[in-house]
């Protein structure tokens, strides 16, 4: 299937699946390792892709994707274009809290080629939270991994009484303040 849908497949028991979409594979690997090193009590599977749509041959083997993280490198404009092109292959119901934009490379202020304004507008247009981080730094990477893990837990429905939609609303309201 060309379009990713959130409720197409059945969820696994006490498990969650994360999809990282971005152009820098090394950074994605680092982030994935940081997430896997966090302490958790549910099974997690991280899928890495450079762009959507995902190849349809292995579609039946893939689990239900709970959270998609689009990684945008602030130093390269083509990562933003890549992400925007991939957004077309995601179903609209995914944007009810199961999508997140992660902007990396924020530590270097002098080589920004994308404006933060543009990224924030993208996040507003797609009703998804935008996180800023610098994955080269150890501490920030660990913190980002923890945040993403918590978000994944909520989006997979593993936190009773709190759904992905309510979480996204909470993020949006606190961002407006």
């Amino acid at each position: 299937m060309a379009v990713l849908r959130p409720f197409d497949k059945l969820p696994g028991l006490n498990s969650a699946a994360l999809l990282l979409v971005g152009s820098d594979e090394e950074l994605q690997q680092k982030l994935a390792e940081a997430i896997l090193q966090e302490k958790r009590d549910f099974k997690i599977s991280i899928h890495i892709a450079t762009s959507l749509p995902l190849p349809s041959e292995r579609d039946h083997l893939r689990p239900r994707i709970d959270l998609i993280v689009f990684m945008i490198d602030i130093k390269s404009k083509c990562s933003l274009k890549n992400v925007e092109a991939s957004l077309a292959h995601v179903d609209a119901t995914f944007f009810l809290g199961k999508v997140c934009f992660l902007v990396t490379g924020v530590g270097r202020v002098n080589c920004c080629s994308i404006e933060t304004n543009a990224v924030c507008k993208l996040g507003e247009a797609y009703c998804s939270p935008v996180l800023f981080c610098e994955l080269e730094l150890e501490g920030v990477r660990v913190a980002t991994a923890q945040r993403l893990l918590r978000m994944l837990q909520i989006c997979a429905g593993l936190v009773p009484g709190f759904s992905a939609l309510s979480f996204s609303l909470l993020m949006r309201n606190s961002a407006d303040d």
Partner: protein
Amino acid sequence: MADESWKLEQELEQGRAQAWPQGGHDMGVLKLLRLRDQMKQQLMEYSAAVRGGETTFLDQVVEEKHIQGVTEDLETNKEEIEVSFWNKTLALQRIQLMAALRNKVNQGDKDSCLILETVNRIVLLSRTIIKYQQLAHEKKQKLIDIKRKRLSLKKDQRRKLQQIQTMKKKQKKEKGNKNLDEAKMLQNLEKERLMTTVIQNVFQNIIIGSGVNWAEDPSLKAIVLQLEKNVHLP
């Protein structure tokens, strides 16, 4: 999607059945309860998605209006609740702050002395501020009174000037009238004089024409001499 949720339960049952013989999983009662909560949450999400995907066969316009009305109500509710929440948070923070201050002051060490000093100074400064503000207020009141008096004086001045103007106008009119009257009177006077002159001349001529010797009779003489004095003045 309803049958998919049924499939979900079946699969999870199978999953549980598979997990038990494996022995690596620690399937205590707590974990089972936790899994049950998770499944409830996931089921709720799926049913919400199902409900969201349903199409209604009602009148589209009515449905839209209804939805709009409901959305507006919900938005106003949400705003009210947010406002009250913020107010309550502020009140709570204020209470916490006061409680912390009170505790600190009750401790009685040098920090609390500083706090007390500062508070006393604040009170003193506020008192002086209030005093000065009162003085300023009084001065402003006086200024306002003076301005008011000035305004009323100006009004009186205006009124008086207007009165003077109207009186002047009246006087001019009266003068004009008087002049007219005088001219009329002079004209009348002239007429009368001419008439009297004519009558005098007529008398003279009657007396002379009657051939009477008027020089002998003193009364006739007096009349003729008197008549000589012509009233007709140059």
